[in-house]
């Protein structure tokens, strides 16, 4: 383990991009995945008992769409403004 740390330690000298370790990548991935699952749930399983709980709104579908939009916004911001660590 020690040699691997020594190797990554060298990177600290200059600026580097956070790349995949940018937390926005994780946010976009997770929230996007949740959104897609919810949209599928909303389209496929939209039962009467669910409708009774939500007061006749397809809550999964709408919440899913909202989450996908947020996820796309994060993905775009990662592309446009990458984090640089000095």
């Amino acid at each position, binding site marked *: 383990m020690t040699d691997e740390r020594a190797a990554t330690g060298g990177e*600290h000298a200059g600026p580097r991009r956070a790349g995949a370790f940018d*937390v926005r990548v994780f*946010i976009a991935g*997770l929230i996007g995945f949740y959104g897609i699952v*919810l949209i599928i749930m909303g389209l496929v399983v939209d039962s009467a008992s669910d409708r009774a709980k*939500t007061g006749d709104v397809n809550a999964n579908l709408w*919440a899913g769409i909202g989450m996908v939009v947020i996820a796309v916004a994060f993905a775009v911001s990662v592309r446009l403004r990458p984090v640089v660590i000095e």
Partner: protein
Amino acid sequence: MDDPLRIGAGIVDYLLIFVYFAVVLLIGVAARRRVSSSLDFLLSGRSLPAWITGLAFISANLGAVEIIGMSANGAEYGMPTMHYYWIGAIPAMLFLGVVMMPFYYGSKVRSVPEFMRRRFGPGAHLVNAISFALAQILIAGINLFLLATVVNGLLGWPLWVALLLAAAIVLSYITLGGLSAAIYNEVLQFFVIVAALLPLTLIGLHRVGGVDGLIDKVRTSVGGGAEQLNSWPGNELAGFGNSVLSVVGIVFGLGFVLSFGYWTTNFVEVQRAMATKSMSAARSTPIIASFPKMFIPFIVVIPGMIAGVLVPEVMRLKAGDQAAGITYNDSILLLIRDVLPTGLLGIALTGLLAAFMAGMAANISAFNTVFSYDLWQQYVKKGRSDGYYLKVGRWATVGATGLAIGTAFIAAGYGNLMTYLQTLFGFFNAPLFATFILGIFWKRMTATAGWVGLVSGTLGAVTVWLLNEVGVFSLPGQGAAFVAAGAAFVVDITVSVLVSLMTPPKPASELGGLVLSETPRQQRTDPAASRLPWYRAPVKLAGISLVLVTALNVIFR
């Protein structure tokens, strides 16, 4: 008999929960590859941007106690609960960013207790470091216990399985990635919580007929009434019959002493700001955090109020039915059970589990910093290599998790004892704030005054609390805590001033960076600050935040 809290979660709900935990562990592994020194592990190498630390700042506090407790208050008291945010948290967070942070960040200390040591020496340092470390273990244990009871109640897993599994997950991601992993997860968790609570609030509002429907129902409900729709004067919350006293109690007790004490000296919070790359970013952390924070009650307190007029069990409880079989703490869980379909249900459960674990992770990552830098390095083994303290930090995490599991089992057995202990540790916060403020602004304050003030302020708070417990005077609601905090503040200041006048002060040469009058301006400010755009300038942002929160206070009076 069927447990009223048992929620029928489907396979999709389990999948959503599982995916979240997989991502959490992935972050731990990814963060590990970047950890190369103890500063990396314990303070994230001071490299994170302010918006990340700002969200982590909120999440570190958005644990079990906050979500369960504030929605419970919402169900029981209604709008006066908003004071915890708009009078309590926000002004204190702005004060931390504008006034206190230059000293924390500028003096290059690595923890709040270390600031105490540099300003007042070992006496005050030991009092602060030990009480803080103990409190963190205790609170981590309570978070863990609440987490396990929710898992047990919702999914039916045995308590000890839920306990050990949750502890194992928290342990693995902190030991792997240290503070970076904890902070990244906190940011992620913030979004999951919003994704869980925002639909809950909107659907709940839809079920009660929108905002107007909620207002009507709260006004006419049994145990509700019009005073639950206005945040002022909040007599029921404070427990004072007199409205003027109630307002004074809320502003001075809750706002000035309790919240300032909590937000400005609690290392769990301050640590997030210390992980940033510049003075401006450190100061901006709590200030940026104040913007989302002021809107969080809308998705925490409002669902509690909705539960109070929509969920049958909570309505019975509000009407005074002792046999309702639940407590106000169950409000938000019952609302989730009643309004969310499979799918959203899984996200809501994930959000809650994430919040409880992040609360615990925050306590443990603050504990291991204080333990390795303030206790071990200072008093046990001085002058070892950095790698040695990195190892101590990792082992401290393992030890703390073990102790938290122990505390959680104790909490499971003696519920009341834990409540009392938590109240007791709450007493340390108010005098701490008094000592800090006096120490920063008055260079004459001496080392002896530091620890004597802390101890006597704490005793002052304990005395007031005991008098209320044995019935010398009686304040229902939260009034006793407000008065105890006020007493602690006054006693601490008085005793510190008297002791300072009788003992020799520290030489001025040792106070640079620690006391306002002895700190050159350059050290307190960021040289690049004047070139920053307004949205990165801490003081301007704080001004905007203050205007917004004042508006919220006025709109919802």
